[in-house]
């Protein structure tokens, strides 16, 4: 088992880890760092449940090797609240019925967060395209869309 030491920023904390060359960023987060908020739905980049923000971009963490994230800034669902205050997206999701089973929720929120940072005023079409890689089998998407739209200042 070949290992490498990597330096990585996770949720604004710099960390150093000795990781197996073969593991994904998703497995590093869940199995090594115990950040289980990011979910494994397919492990092949199709469902979006593993979405994190890597250097400002929403990515499927199951498609990135941990060693390839060396030197990067990674944000997960655990890191987006400010102290005890929730991120506005988190509040909006709760209030607008965007959460059902909750499995897709962290990924949805991270995709939405990345979108709003690069485009604070997306229209509905832009939101739909940005979140098209996050599957949801429970909720029907409209409430999630509404949650995001409610944060946009017209």
């Amino acid at each position, binding site marked *: 088992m070949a290992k490498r030491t990597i330096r990585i920023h996770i949720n604004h904390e710099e960390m150093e880890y000795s990781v197996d060359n073969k593991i994904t960023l998703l497995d590093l987060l869940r199995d090594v760092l115990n950040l289980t908020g990011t979910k494994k739905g397919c492990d092949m980049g199709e469902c979006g449940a593993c979405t994190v923000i890597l250097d400002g971009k929403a990515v499927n963490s199951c498609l990135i090797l941990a060693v390839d994230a060396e030197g990067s800034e990674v944000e997960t669902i655990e890191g987006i609240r400010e102290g005890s205050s929730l991120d506005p997206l988190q509040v909006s999701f709760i209030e607008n019925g965007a959460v059902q089973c909750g499995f897709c929720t962290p990924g949805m929120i991270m995709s939405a967060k990345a979108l709003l940072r690069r485009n604070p005023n997306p229209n509905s079409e832009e939101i739909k395209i940005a979140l098209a890689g996050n599957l949801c089998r429970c909720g*029907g998407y409209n409430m999630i869309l509404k949650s995001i739209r409610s944060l946009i200042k017209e």
Partner: protein
Amino acid sequence: MITNKYDVIGKGLPRIDGLVKVTGEAKFVSDIKLPGILCGKILRSRLPHARILNINTSKAEHMLGVKAVITAKDTLKKTFCINMRMANNLLLQNEKVRYVGDQIAAVAAVDEEIALEALSLIEVDYEELPAFFDPFEAVIPGKPKIHKEENNIALSISRSFGDIEKGFNESNIVLEDEFYSPPVAHCCLEPRGCVASVDASGSLTVWATTQTPHPLREELSGVLGLPMIKIRVIQQFMGGGFGSRMGMDPIDGITCLLSLKTGKPVRIVNTRDEEFLSSRIRYPMWIWLKTGVKRNGRLHARQVKIITDNGAYSMEGDTVMGNALSKVAQLYNIPNAKYEGKLVYTNNVYGGACRGYGNPQITYAMEIQMDKIAEALNMDAAEIRLLNANEPDSVTISGLQIGSCGLKDCIREVVDASGWAQKRGRLSDHKSSVRRGIGMANMIHGGSGVKFFWGDNCNFSAATIKFNSDGTADVFTGSAELGQGSNTVLAMIAAEECGLMIEDINITNGDTLVTPPCRGAWASRQTFTAGLAVQLACKDAKRQLFEVASYLLEANQDDLVAKNRKIFVKGNPSKFIAIAEAASEAFFNSGVPIIGRGINDDPWSFKPDSKTGYGNINSAYAFATQAAEVEVDMETGCVTVLNMYCAHDLGRAINPLLAECQIEGGVLSMGIGYALTEKLIIENGEVKNRNFADYKILTMADICNVHTILVETVDSKGPFGAKGVGEPAMIPTAAAIANAIYDAVGVWVYDLPITPEKILKTINNKQRVLRR
């Protein structure tokens, strides 16, 4: 819209578990961390039908890092099934494998990589047997048997109500059509998994993706040969269920066995590939439907024959097929009905409960024929449905005692909301190659669960409530929260009944050690059955609170009311004490804590007569109408759903926001996919499209507007009048879309999904109906 006189009920409150889900704190089965937990993996057959001659596990056992390898000889070889009379599945197959994905052996190792390598070292000698993937072939006399049944027929059902021959003879128009509903995957976003951990006393704790924690405990006890007090099942947060997690899966038992053998905690979680390959599916059905109608538009006779592909093992095919068949005698007032069904074994992956439980399949057939009938009679499709709609306080020919029924209201609401009269038959521009249309469909479904799983009289739910000395309360329910919001609804029911606010209630559910039993989440029953149990427990506790309050207030117990955290005399709210004060008094001065108990044993529904099929199988029935507005591109065959209008009679919306979530989710995340895009492609018994790129469910980019109308008929039996809504959300969707497509381009597609290829082929093959 009825007046809301309640303080908590009827409000769109945010769900109580929303916070832990948006922060990622909610722990699902794959998130559980236990020291020394081993990784379990299952060896699955790549052959669809073969005798197992020998399994050699020695190489795997000796591999460094492997802690246990088990095969059937390490089990009690006990079969399991929700209906034990049909049980023939084992945790690990002993004599034969019967489908691609069938489980043969299992391994527990220190990590996933070693576990997978160990699987590859297990040597299995097979004798391949002829395999059947088509039930029409499997039933041919003389063909080899998959189990012991002649002609591979697991079950035949035949029932008749009224006089079907006379009914057709008296009908003025008779239509016959054949339909097909394909194998469909649940696609829960969380793959199925289980963690089991045995302690030094031999007691197992099992964290399971299960919709039925208490029944799972019973099933595990059966297959493991352990008394139930040695098994604790904890229902974790769950990433979807939709019926797939009703009843035990081999994963649950296998994980337990590995833990028992190693003495360590073990986790098994399906990969997405395994989830598509081997998880139970929606039962595929071939439906032949014949309907007779009088010239005045009244349905007069309806007959159906269904062949259901049971797959390799029995799970719930008998009741799913039974539910589908029986709908011909249930939806609409109809005096003559007959149904016949054959459940046939094949070497395909086997079916299980899937949202709607056979009803989406039959509703597709029935509601397309309704539109065909309307056209034949030159009647409006909404009018003919109004004419035949079920009525409140009526009895159907098969013995359903319908109490609350808002079907006519649902139809009218959809007609109004959708602009039906302006759109039907008028949307298409015949010069354009892109056509639009609108269509509708109705449905009836049980809203309260049935009695004939696990026994002949078993649809109970139990709950307890204990008040704390500060007036807050802990509620314990055996129900299952799959994400549908049942915990929030139950907390709202408890708060309303006790006169508290939702934040005063704590709900503990689904842990068999600490909650009283409930049969679980299926048949859209939790709000009704668990809701009534919680309500009964609260009434019991309230009686005890009122006993204490009556001497503090010097009033008669019967004159007291609990509201807004107070107890006061009816009509004199200024004479009150706080509920907290009554609770504290009970604890510290009476010395008797307030503990309430409620059992809802469902006194209103019955197992149907075993010979005639007659009987009231649910306590309450949900109704709905959905209309779809679609656009069809005649050059590509592509269908876009533009709008859905959905009116659902759910009795009372305990939480309107959550009810809308269920309906939207059912339509967008499942119903439209069932209509247009979803099908498991099975070749030689192997599921070929085993990922989300090849098995298409809707994404956010594919959605349309969903206009939801909640019709509140206030059922006389349900908690505060509520009935179920979870499954109804997607039952009529596909038929509404099919009927809309016909309105747009003049063709019906009888086999799902309605793909662009089928639309183009049907347009090319058939003459288009002229517009009036």
